[in-house]
């Protein structure tokens, strides 16, 4: 299994990451090695097997819709890199 540099760049964009040239090559190699190892799962016939997404078969949990206390805005924003008038501030989105 091999992964091209272009594929790494595409996946990195999806993950909102960026890499320098040297890193790209190293990642392409390491990802290919790990994904090749993972290909052994193909040895198993799973055509009639239900997937498991959760270890316990818990069903939905319901509760009464009660009004309870919550974090004050100031505390909720206390770790924000930039804030203004009770809002998070982000770089301009609309061009």
């Amino acid at each position: 299994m091999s992964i091209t540099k272009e594929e790494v760049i595409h996946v990195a964009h999806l993950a909102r990451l960026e890499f320098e040239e040297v890193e790209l090559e190293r990642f392409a190699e390491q990802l290919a090695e790990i994904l090749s190892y993972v290909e052994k799962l193909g040895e198993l016939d799973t055509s009639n097997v239900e997937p498991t997404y959760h270890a316990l078969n818990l069903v939905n949990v319901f509760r009464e819709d009660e009004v309870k206390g919550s974090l004050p805005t100031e505390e909720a924003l206390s770790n924000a890199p930039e804030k203004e008038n009770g809002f998070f501030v982000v770089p301009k989105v609309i061009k």
Partner: protein
Amino acid sequence: MTWHKFPLSTQLELLEKGETDSLSLTKALLERIKEKDPQIKAFIKVTEEEALKAAEEADRSRKEGEKRPLLGLPLAIKDNICTRGIPTTCASRILANFVPPFDATVITKLKAAGAVILGKTNLDEFAMGSSTENSAFFPTKNPWDFSRVPGGSSGGSAAAVAAGFCAGALGSDTGGSIRQPASFCGVVGLKPTYGRVSRYGLVAFASSLDQIGPITRTVKDAALLLQYLAGPDPKDSTSAPKEVPDYLSALKMDLRGKKIGLPKEYFGEGLEEEVRLKIEEALKVFKEELGLEIREISLPHTPYAVATYYIIAPAEASSNLARYDGVKYGLRVEAQDLIAMYKKTRSQGFGPEVKRRIMIGTYALSAGYYDAYYKKASQVRTLIVRDFMEAFKEVDFIVGPVAPSPAFKIGERVDDPLKMYLSDIYTISVNLAGIVGLSLPCGFSGQGLPIGIQIMGPHFSEPEVLALGHQFEEILKLYERYPEI
């Protein structure tokens, strides 16, 4: 007084009898941390001031006749568990300055039970790793041999308990992150049933696998802590709506005639001879001294567990870690537009292993690959779960090694991610199936390194698994051995 040598249950007894107070105990441990931790580096942050205050309060409460179950006991907390007002970094640059405005449910519970928090312990960044070398801040050393890793990802918590900085700590276990460091450091680590302990406030890595559990010197202490950690939590809808049994009184249950299964897949290629020998000696104890029956079993899909895990865990991680975007908390690296800001922030904030897992996960979940990787791995997960369910029809426990070798050298595996992943081979199936896994010392290698044994049991079998571990440790009494530091 050699405070650092006492397990939690002894500390509690001395406190209850009035032979010491929490302030003296806390001061003694803080003193030891100050003296020895610069070499070991188990702690990211020691919360001395808060600890002394909590200890004084505990002593005051005790004088007033309060009978809280862990009153005045000092504990350490893995730094991926949120503590209100105390930085919670996940050993990542992206959260280096994050101060949670809330406590994780386990912290709320420990505080209510009267525990004193000594500090926050080191880990592999976001709990991704098996050696604590992936911490963005510094590696932790194994107290038994400073040239070796303490295991990971809860390496700081395991090293802290082994070094006698505290008799109990919290860890988290997604693929072995409590059990493997416990094994490498010669202490006890319990991964409870998925859902037994609330995950609210545990910084999410892989939500269908993560579970908080205790790291202690004795199995009895693990039972003591679990008693006050376990239970349903309205803030975690995946916590099991199930009553918490009395773990301490279950320790004495009669286990004669119960059956232990030895999965032949856990004793094959890759297992170091010394580890195999110690496990075999332990089996003799189970059989001859404790009267259990031992038989060989098979968990046929074991060879696929690592591959399954390294799709499912990174897939969940890539989605969970999308929240670190430089907006709500954590690092922000400025850039001209929003997407560039995300990319710069995340690329500078995450270390190489975290990026690697985000990349694997994103790849496995991306258009065109979802069925081939994520769905396929989730189907194989079903086969792994079935292996255990079939086995538990025949036997009460499954016993095997925790790791293929004792603690390895610092730097030995850091450049070979796949080799590092393969060292998790005996622990990850337990997380995939959500069952109980207990790691406890069963001997030492020729070089004096601790070797651990793993006891696995079905969902919610903590009382039985802890009882077996406790009865075993009371015969060998390995908890009496301390590293010379």
